[in-house]
């Protein structure tokens, strides 16, 4: 069993902190010698290259890479040592665009987005705009991390925020292995608090969804079956309820790539992804309906491309120059990590895509 270091790659000064090095790994070896086809070749087989956007639906903003947790598989390489945080000025630029965009969903992510000192101001301002679906990706433990966060459930409720939270398993052992010692107990407590004010309850408008991503070098199982199992155990053991479970595949980048290499699972994992490739999933892959904004205002096709430093292939690359029409004409940037979103029933921040 591999014992992972619980520090960000940046803190450890790992070579994988460099996104160019990650892209190099993803393009060499089994993809260079022809053992496995490159993603570009694979989607070209069904005439889906170059990949183009569909209608824009989701505006996803990363408020910063700072996090109270250091999860072993984090694709953001987030952690307490990460200081990249969105400023109020960039937030204002985002707000100006949210007022005009065609996207019906605003999706705030991080790190722990709540750790941004202007998080509450931003949520208050954004909620005035009247977005159809306003998501905050909360890691749950932040609610119990410090007194100043204890009222977050009430704050979310006040602004009708749709809470989406990670929960890798219904058992303590598997959850803590991936997300850190004590995370399971704190997450359970936070979920109970959210339930107590109406989040996740049947017929409640206060939406609470959970995200499941595998704790190791394997793909997620069927989303509906996993949801059934999660609901059964969380209700029985902890009297917790939630609405939907999103099963998300771990993409081979950042800390998960580090884990795959260190545990000698990289090649087998890439084989699994390529074998599970499903051309149907390409039709609905999330980069086709999403724009991802980084903490410093740069624009990306998705959160994964953001972490790999792959800015959109458009004249417009920054929120200050935002032009939706121009952006919608872009070609989406792809590499071998994209196999993670097209395996099986597909994977996105909203779970399976088929």
């Amino acid at each position, binding site marked *: 069993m591999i014992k992972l270091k619980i520090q960000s790659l940046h803190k450890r000064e790992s070579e994988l902190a460099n996104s160019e090095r990650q892209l190099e790994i993803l393009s060499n070896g089994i993809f260079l010698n022809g053992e496995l086809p490159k993603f570009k070749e694979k989607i070209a087989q069904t005439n889906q290259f170059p990949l183009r956007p569909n209608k824009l639906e989701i505006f996803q903003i990363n408020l910063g890479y700072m996090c109270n947790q250091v999860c072993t598989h984090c694709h953001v390489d987030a952690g307490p040592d990460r200081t990249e945080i969105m400023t109020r000025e960039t937030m204002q630029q985002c707000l100006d665009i949210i007022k005009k965009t065609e996207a019906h969903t605003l999706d705030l992510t991080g790190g722990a987005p709540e750790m941004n000192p202007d998080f509450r101001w931003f949520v208050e301002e954004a909620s005035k705009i009247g977005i159809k679906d306003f998501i905050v990706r909360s890691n749950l433990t932040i609610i119990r991390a410090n007194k100043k966060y204890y009222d977050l459930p009430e704050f979310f409720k006040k602004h009708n925020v749709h809470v989406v939270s990670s929960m890798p398993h*219904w058992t303590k*052992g598997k959850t803590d292995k991936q997300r850190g010692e004590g995370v399971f107990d704190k997450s359970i407590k936070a979920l109970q608090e959210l339930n107590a004010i109406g989040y996740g309850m049947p017929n409640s408008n206060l939406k609470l969804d959970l995200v*499941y991503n595998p704790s190791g070098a*394997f*793909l997620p*199982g069927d989303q509906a079956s996993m949801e059934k*199992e999660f609901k059964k155990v969380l209700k029985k053991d902890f009297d917790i309820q939630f609405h939907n479970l999103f099963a998300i595949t771990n993409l081979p980048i950042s800390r998960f790539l580090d884990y795959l290499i260190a545990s000698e699972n990289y090649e087998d994992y890439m084989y699994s992804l390529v*074998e599970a490739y499903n051309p149907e999933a390409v039709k609905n892959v999330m980069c086709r309906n999403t724009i991802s904004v980084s903490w410093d205002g740069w624009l990306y096709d998705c959160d994964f491309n953001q972490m790999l430093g792959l800015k959109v292939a458009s004249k417009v690359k920054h929120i200050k120059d935002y032009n939706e029409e121009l952006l919608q004409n872009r070609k989406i940037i792809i590499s071998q990590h994209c196999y993670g979103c097209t395996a099986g029933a597909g994977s996105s921040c909203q779970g399976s895509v088929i």
Partner: protein
Amino acid sequence: MSKTYYDPADLKKFGNITDWSEELGTKFFEYYNKVFEEGALSAREKSLIALAVAHTEQCPYCIDAYTKDGLQRGITKEEMMEAIHVGAAIKSGATLVMGVQMMNKVNKLDG
């Protein structure tokens, strides 16, 4: 030729058995896939049965495949180990119940 009988990479080639007998191979895989669909038993229960049988059959390919399948389904290591004990209990029970035949024989010959 490989110097060992078991190469984990061969599991990926399982589908190739249809190359030398297409009709039978295809029928086998159709049957195989149908068996593991949700039915009166859940796919999850079937995965655990498969894991236990993989051990009693001592098939390294099947053990690799159904350990991974179990993890993908969220099956815990405790559940997997219990399933293997079920297989082991039947294996050892099947051996020991033959002891009755031995006892019968001893009683007949030397009772």
